[in-house]
């Protein structure tokens, strides 16, 4: 497969060239911005500072989204006489140019299920000091608006900390629909978003443990914040480990600790004192290093 890759790349490029069809035409609109600015001066001025503002070279104009609005202008600015996109209608309009989102947003997005449309998060008439990607607020604040429980999860003391410059909700989730469950992103090699940062946990390990074998990071960790240290699902190490490492006769996957692991001794209650390589090891079959 490794050797086929360049052929694949060239092949697909050739197919694309063979089509010989140009990309989607930029939304063409009659630029009536000056007319609009007569009443909406501030909105038009701010619009010029957005990525959509490159109207002179094929970008969208007021007309692209709102229509010509002749009657709206003739009749004193009656808001019912001009197109104000929203909901499904607004989504369709945005996807005219943002075609990639058509494939993503339509199917896997919980936001599509919840009738969230582009304008709920993005402010097309953004101010000069707008957030990136024309977001109406900071990404974390936007998510918190509709996900108070998840925001509450981050108030737990252990785990990822939002709002201290590091993590954002969109670090792991794709609001337009990720490839994993719960709109989670996957990295370029199809693995969980966790590995984008925690790359050293990716392996491969000669002696793997849990992740990629029969579970994943969430088998032991609560990513949003946890009431337990290390963002774990149990507060005590032995309880977490024994969840799986018990009752081997049940036909499940997971070993049983031998009897010298006397849980009355703190040495054995804290499994990771010896088995430190819980994410996998290349040097120790029993994950001791």
């Amino acid at each position, binding site marked *: 497969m490794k050797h086929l890759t360049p052929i694949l790349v060239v092949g697909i490029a050739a197919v*694309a060239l063979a*089509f010989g069809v140009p990309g989607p035409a930029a939304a063409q609109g009659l630029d009536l911005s000056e007319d609009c600015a007569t009443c909406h001066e501030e909105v038009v001025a701010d619009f010029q500072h957005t990525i959509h503002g490159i109207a002179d070279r094929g970008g969208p104009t007021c007309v692209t989204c709102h229509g010509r609005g002749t009657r709206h202008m003739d009749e004193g600015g009656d808001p019912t006489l001009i197109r104000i996109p929203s909901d499904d209608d607004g989504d369709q309009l945005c996807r005219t140019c943002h075609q990639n989102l058509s494939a993503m947003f339509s199917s896997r997005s919980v936001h599509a299920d919840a009738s969230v449309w582009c304008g709920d998060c993005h402010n097309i008439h953004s101010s000069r*000091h707008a957030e990136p990607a024309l977001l109406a607020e900071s990404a974390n604040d936007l998510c918190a608006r509709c996900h*108070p429980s998840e*925001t*509450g999860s981050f108030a737990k003391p252990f785990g990822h900390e939002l709002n201290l410059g590091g993590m954002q909700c969109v670090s792991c989730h794709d609001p337009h629909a990720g490839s994993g469950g719960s709109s989670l992103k996957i990295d370029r090699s199809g693995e969980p978003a966790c590995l984008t940062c925690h790359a050293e946990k990716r392996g491969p390990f000669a002696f793997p443990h849990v992740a990629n074998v029969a579970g994943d990071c969430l088998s032991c960790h609560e990513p949003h914040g946890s009431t337990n240290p290390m963002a774990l699902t149990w507060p005590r190490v032995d309880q977490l480990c024994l969840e799986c490492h018990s009752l081997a006769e049940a036909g499940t996957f997971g070993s049983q600790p*031998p009897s010298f692991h006397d*849980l009355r001794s703190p040495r054995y*209650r804290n499994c990771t004192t010896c088995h430190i390589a819980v994410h996998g090891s290349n040097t120790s*079959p029993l994950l001791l290093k």
Partner: protein
Amino acid sequence: MNTHRIAIAAFASIVVILSPWAFAQSTSFDIEVGYQSVDVNGNEDMYRTQVNQDDGVVLRRLSVNFVDPTGGAGLVDRLRLDASGFGGSPAGRFRLDVGLGAAYRLSLFYQQIDTYSALPAYANPMVDDGIVPGQHTWDRTRELLDLRFELLPGEALTPIIGYRWNRYDGPGLTTYSVGNDEFRIASDLEETEKEFYLGLAFTTNRIQGTVLQGWREFTGRTRDRLAAGESIGNDPGTTLGQEITLDSFDRSTRTDADTPVTTVHLTGKVTENARLVASYVRSDADGDTRMSELLSGSLASFQISRFFSGLDQTVEGRTENPSWRGELRFDWDINHNLGLKLGYEARDRQLEGWTIISSLYADTLNFGGFDPQDISTLVEAKTGYERKESIARVRFDVRDLGPVALWAEYAVDDQNLDVSADVAQIVLPEGQEGEFDRKISSYSAGGSVHLGDVKVLLDVASQNADDIVMRTDFNDRLRLRGRVDWSIGHILRLLFTAESIEVDNYDTGVGYDSTTDRYAVDLTVTPTDTFTLRGSYDTYSTDTKVPIRVPQTFEITSAVYAEDGEMLEGGLMWKISIFTLDAAYSTFENNGSFPFQLDRTSARLALDLTKSIAIAGEYENWDYSESSFPVADYDADRWGLFVRWRR
């Protein structure tokens, strides 16, 4: 020059090159920078583990936005730069996007995260002796760099070139179990993952796609040594009458992994209302590990049934880990009201691991104190697994039935796991190798109703599995979710969400049960543009019960875990003339298996000196307490003075 320096040099060069645009008159920017001071009373290690703010200058926000509508500015017609968190904050991020029309687009992302962990009680076998923090601590830094360049973005053909870099390094303390005791060791590591990729995006009237080929390289270097003053080990007693000590210890480990990664994504328009989406990802990881370890002391091994005074061990390992996943999806809008989606996804991951562990035990004596000799052992371990999964799903969407929208989905997930463990891994026979199959059927449905200012959403998902693989897998799982969102213009917004998850496992000998309920209500009142009052209440409870076998007696008992958390939060924003006050208080209390309380108070008073310049004073308090282990408690204040300049 190492990669880090190259990255910094590249970053500096880009900033210098782009500075004319960044400071052009048509550019808007927003910068907030200041100084903060942190005062921690109580357990500073716990504060640093949870929060990790520090004294010093902090870049709270930097945004630069430049758009040239005419394209007359030359090489750049749009530039967006955002940065935050550098300085006294535990994490900083920087993002830069620049481009010129349909000529090119360049994006650069850099993030630096200080990670610190020194927990007092967690995984600490010495806590009953009053020794804190625990034995596993670290103070490390993670840095990420992501660079991507697209030529002719959005055109028929778009060449793409990118580079990713991720480094994790720094000192830490951990433990090593050797010679029938555990010893604390200092562990310095440097782990770097780099990936270079190139590819092509293409767009035609009917097909869009991206093909990327990447080459990922991981390098891990770890140097472990005996921590100062730790030669006694965790067990002060003796083994068969002999005191166990470790006098010297030195280990070096080097791991390298090379992984070519291929990513293909295609979207084709079958008709105006039907779309076919396909994706394929393949990676072939190939890893090598070399470890050498040299130690001396007074030690015992039950594996060779001898005392020994030295160990010289080398490990050579090799892994091969091919994996792929493919997906095919068909989206069809049958008419304005009805949509159909069909999807099929398949994944396959394999691993073959091979390791030779060569050990030379020096000056050994049998447990009777006789028969002195050096003993050499050689272990060859081979492991492997293959994990296969295929998911088929069908979904119907019904839209615009007046104020109602509905959807329903059925999915079947077939899982197969085939594991072969090495005898060196087998603890007790059974449970560590074999073939495991599981089939999960999922039924889910939901809907939304829009009635004026009220939006109501409900969904239910029911899953059942014919078998389990792990003891924590479910046989049945039921999830119910609901949401009511009520707004009165911009004046009031009330949001209520509820979620209940019930997991049941009735497999013989397992009996794993878990229930989770969470409810949240959020109220925002904005009577005027200058005043906002907000409050929220969030409650969360979970009960988990799983039978476990006690290793030392083989008796069956239950492990029970409970969380009973409540969070109450309130805040206000009040703007009076040139003053803006933003204040908040929250309290989070957990009364479950691990009881604690965390109260947070924050206030920020900003003063607008001019239309574009403001100064702000900040105060923040974190008050953390554990009722069962007060040694962990801390009370931290942070004071800050910031200047904000916007143009």
